């Protein structure tokens, strides 16, 4: 329990230390450090191929780092599915850290509701009724209560992505990883998805957001990280990073967005 008198610094929820990732001869991450405090929203921006997606996938071990470590609430995450000794298993990590993907990856053979309760029933072993209650709560929060029995192929891209967010939230995770979740959407559908994410940020959800939506990143983030060539080139408050950049490469990168 935190003491009442001294407001302690928020606990680090998820931490990456010295993450190195290679694909064959190509090194795509050259030792990335990032600590995510409870309630913090961190956006990662950078040019294509800078390694930001690979990095966020390392944070829940969908990509196994070649060096470095991922820690969840101080416990190092091991490479096996279940924990061993003092190591947390990958499976356990992923129960606490949700992810939303660029291409939604909804399960096409299941309805909206079935997609969302799959984690609670199969992984968390919750009774179906309890899972449905939690799921419907989140499905309603993303504004799709009337679509509970629809199949993914009957939904628009924006609706699919909102279902994917509800699917991640229904696991009641400690943190969310959002990997370019608006990049595959038609421009007119981006807003509805970002609206949901903005709501989550306001409610204090801990998030890492890989995005090309620079102004959105500036709006919702506590911290913006600029990656380039597999390294963190710059990081800081949205104001410092996005409105008054002093890094030349960052300026060049931002100029492309500001036209």
């Amino acid at each position, binding site marked *: 329990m935190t003491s009442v008198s001294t407001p302690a610094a928020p606990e680090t929820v998820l931490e990456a230390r010295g993450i190195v990732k290679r694909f064959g001869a190509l090194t795509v991450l050259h030792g990335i450090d990032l600590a995510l405090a409870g309630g913090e929203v961190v956006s990662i921006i950078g040019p294509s191929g800078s390694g930001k997606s690979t990095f966020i996938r390392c944070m*829940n071990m*969908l990509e196994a780092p070649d060096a470095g470590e991922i820690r969840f609430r101080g416990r190092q995450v091991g490479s096996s599915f279940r924990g061993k000794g003092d190591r947390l298993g990958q499976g356990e990590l992923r129960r606490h850290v949700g992810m939303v993907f660029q291409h939604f990856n909804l399960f096409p053979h299941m309805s909206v509701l079935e997609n969302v309760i799959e984690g609670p029933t199969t992984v968390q072993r919750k009774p179906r009724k309890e899972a449905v209650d939690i799921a419907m709560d989140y499905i309603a929060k993303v504004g799709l209560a009337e679509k509970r029995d629809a199949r993914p192929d009957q939904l628009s891209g924006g609706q699919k992505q909102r279902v994917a967010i509800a699917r991640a939230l229904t696991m009641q995770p400690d943190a969310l990883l959002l990997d370019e979740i608006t990049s595959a959407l038609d421009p007119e559908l981006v807003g509805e998805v970002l609206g949901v994410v903005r709501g989550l940020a306001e409610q204090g959800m801990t998030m890492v957001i890989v995005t090309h939506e620079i102004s959105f990143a500036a709006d919702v983030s506590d911290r913006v990280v600029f990656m380039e060539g597999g390294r963190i080139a710059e990081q800081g408050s949205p104001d410092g990073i996005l409105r008054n950049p002093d890094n030349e490469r960052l300026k060049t990168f931002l100029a492309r967005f500001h036209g």
Partner: protein
Amino acid sequence: MYTWSFAPIAQSADLFLWGAWITILYTVSSIAIGLVLGLLLCFARLSGIGPLNWLAQGFQELFRCTPLLVQLLWIYYALPLLLGFDLANWAAALITLSLYAAAFYAEVFRGGIVSIDRGQSEAGAAIGMSGWQVMRRIVLPQAIRRMMPAFINQSVTQFKNTSLISVISVAELTYMASIVNGQTYRPLESYTVLAVLYFAILFPITKFADIVESRTRGGH
């Protein structure tokens, strides 16, 4: 002008019926065994364990790259010499048909499974599912739908292939037709009835396969 006469053939109707029954038995049982072995082969191929993968692949290539008739002859006449004990013709037939089916079904399964987008497994893993849960809940239900047409095609082929075991005197449909021919000296009628029987059984099945295929396409 040839005068058709089915009367002598009709007297042997019970032989044809019995033969058809035996053909169906060999088809169904070799498909059942082939499915189990094929699934094991497929998982061996996808296991990511080198030796297991090579072994399974070697087995598959062996059965895919030699004629079924040659396999049948080898297992019936040659294998017993290696093993030092006799193999009954029905056992040799069942073993050969089952192994042959397994090699092909394994490929049908593997094709279905690897055709499922990687994002599906990742989405399953991302909510904390184990590899087996991902396979059972996410990948297989989608893969099975997708592999149905290939599975039915392969099974139709399996049905027709059972005619080869007549060569080692298993009394299935084709063998019975040659018996009837021997008794009646009416090859035209005997073998026409034989062909019509195969067709009558398989035609509805292939139509069914077409319906399944079009529905699968409509689905996703």
